[in-house]
């Protein structure tokens, strides 16, 4: 038995892949989270009201999702419903997060794979034309910056937002900065589309070169998005079968009835399944679960995708293309919200501290995120974080095994395997800090 070890980069956090190979057969493919954060342990005893400011520190990449999920969990316990203005500003926050994350995954994490470079900042070493690629890095960062600016505008702080509070938000958004942000998005939307077009072409070329879009079998899909169009701030989780039929729809408080959670000895992260079946969360799940994007440009891209790959679509590398569709969607949707009046008085409703148990759900870039708190005497007695990356663990390992089988034979190991491992893992865009919170 031989063990192959693959260190991983261009993903969030510390992880590696270990494959056991015997006689040219892949016996196991383990995706190992090699760090451990432990928030569940050390949040115990924290004043409940401070959670929305502390928990974004679980992960600087997904901080906004944790911020909003935390506020929602406490609102569930204190039984308050935020006003509409607060909901719009929170949606903007989540859109900012989606833009920042999808742009990072597309351009910083996975674009280098398409041209064989070590990073976006080293694209000139690759086979691509240096002049063009250099501008690629600058343009990518500009598009990504839109997400950061939106988070800052709607969330106050730029990494660990502070503006969502129990019962609402600390303030609205004044007309002038809202208009400036709207203009920035409008100006950069064509650039985002152009980059995505280039990315799409690079992906096609890569698919051609390696001869596959990921040949794993179909899976279940999980997301808390809407049926007809994307939702990031809903209160329902939905599950789709491999055939495209909806199998379940449930509020976050019932997640244990539908999802099975297990720990492993080889990783600091656990794994969940849908009643024993492999499921997938993240962009491809959302796209498979919603009928349309509800905005013109994004719908155009969706049509192009569905035309080639059908729906539900299953090939793994489509996760990446779906991220691009969502990037365009988030730009367009943010434009819609920023055109409204976001500067009126009705920012929040009062609440009273109270003990109890509550759930907060948001659709984070990586899938449905649940915060589940129990509060006693105003302090956190238990804080459970149900993490999207954990829903993808079994799917990642199954896809890694398939990739291993493709490139390992009794005679030799094709050197393409190391690259394939990177491509598979990055398609799922796992977040290890969250997975080991």
């Amino acid at each position, binding site marked *: 038995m031989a063990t192959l070890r693959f260190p991983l980069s261009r993903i969030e956090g510390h992880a590696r892949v270990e494959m056991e190979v015997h006689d040219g057969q892949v016996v196991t493919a383990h995706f190992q989270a090699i760090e451990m954060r432990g928030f569940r342990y050390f949040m115990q005893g924290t004043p409940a009201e401070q959670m929305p400011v502390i928990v974004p520190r679980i992960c*600087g990449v997904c901080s906004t999702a944790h911020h909003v999920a935390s506020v929602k969990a406490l609102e569930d316990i204190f039984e308050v419903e935020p006003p509409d203005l607060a909901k719009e500003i929170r949606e903007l926050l989540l859109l900012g997060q989606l833009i920042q994350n999808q742009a990072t995954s597309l351009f910083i994490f996975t674009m280098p794979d398409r041209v064989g470079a070590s990073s976006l900042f080293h694209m000139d070493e690759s086979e691509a034309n240096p002049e063009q690629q250099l501008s690629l890095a*600058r343009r990518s960062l500009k598009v990504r910056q839109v997400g950061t600016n939106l988070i800052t505008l709607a969330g106050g702080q730029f990494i660990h937002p502070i*503006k969502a509070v129990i019962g609402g938000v600390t303030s609205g958004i004044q007309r002038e900065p809202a208009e400036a942000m709207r203009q920035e998005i409008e100006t950069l939307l064509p650039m985002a589309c152009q980059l995505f077009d280039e990315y799409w072409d690079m992906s096609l070329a890569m698919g051609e070169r390696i001869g596959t879009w990921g040949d794993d079998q179909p899976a279940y899909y999980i997301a808390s998005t809407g049926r007809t169009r994307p939702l990031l701030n809903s209160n329902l989780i939905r599950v789709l079968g491999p055939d495209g039929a909806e199998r379940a729809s449930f509020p976050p408080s019932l997640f244990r009835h539908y999802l099975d959670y297990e720990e492993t000895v080889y990783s600091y992260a656990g794994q969940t399944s849908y009643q024993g079946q492999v499921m997938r969360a993240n962009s491809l799940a959302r796209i498979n679960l919603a009928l349309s994007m509800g905005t013109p440009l994004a719908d155009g891209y969706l049509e192009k995708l569905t035309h080639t790959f059908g729906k539900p679509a299953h090939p793994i590398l489509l996760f990446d293309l779906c991220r691009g569709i969502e990037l365009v969607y988030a730009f367009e949707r943010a434009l819609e919200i920023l055109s409204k009046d976001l500067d009126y*008085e009705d920012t929040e409703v009062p609440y009273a501290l109270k003990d109890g148990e509550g759930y907060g759900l948001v659709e984070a870039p990586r899938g449905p995120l649940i915060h589940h708190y129990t509060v006693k005497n105003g302090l956190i007695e238990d804080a459970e974080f149900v993490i999207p990356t954990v829903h993808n663990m079994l799917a990642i390992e199954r896809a890694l095994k398939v990739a291993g089988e493709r490139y390992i034979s009794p005679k030799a190991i094709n050197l393409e395997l190391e690259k394939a491992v990177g491509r598979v893992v990055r398609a799922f865009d796992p977040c290890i800090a969250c997975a080991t919170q």
Partner: protein
Amino acid sequence: MPENSSLPRFAVLQLSGCAGCEVSLINASEWVDQYQLVYMPLVVSTHAVPEDTEVLLVSGGVRNDEDVYNLRRSVEIVERVVAVGTCAISGGVANLGDRDEVRAMFMAQENRHHLPHLLPKSHPIDAFVDVDLYLPGCPPTPELFMAALTNPENFEASSIVCSECKRQKLKDMRPEHLLGFQQGEVQPEICLINQGYLCVGSSVRGGCRAICTRPGHPCVGCRGPSDAYIEKESQVWFDRVQNVFERLTDIPPKEIQTALHSPQLSLFLFQFTDYADGERPPRPKEKVL
């Protein structure tokens, strides 16, 4: 950015943290034209800090044996080491778990195979190596990152957050109780203390441009104590903030005192003094940006 250009080379070592520091650095994209990024696992596929690296930014605390190994090995080959963010400076948010029962829960994870071994607590990096510059913030803003990389000496910042916040402190708006962090509607341009919020900006170092207090959330002190308190015991800091509140409000002193001892604040405020088992002297303020 050709690979062999004469631009200075910098690397980012990510230990155990939330990656927020790295995200902030990516936001500070101006370095693209001035520096060559040679190592940073989040964005570059290379597996070790290469020779000839000038500046090493370290983010995250030291949480397991692999962190210790990577840290020791990386500092050997660089000229300048910068500790970036609360986690690298103090061990960070994970130190909320520096209590016996939590340590025990961490240690109970030891039955896993082939994984780095966890240490009982998250350590600051200077418990293992020498640091040339401390860059506090959770995370430091892109502007602070650029200053640390290019010319820390010439960075202009106010000594405290209040001076960058510019909300007005009123003599005649005296709350009788604290509102907590999350309650009530925030009025623009009036100091949050006058409105009953526990804002500690009056003794927290400036440089962040008051990004939290401007939109209406109290400062929780992620930049750490200002130069006046950085080398002092935490009690001096407590007394000072208590004073500010007693001057501006009619809130009972006991109520303020209890609130000031909250986990959220202690996490950030004592990043420079109460660390590494209390055996080392506080960090010199000259080394803190």
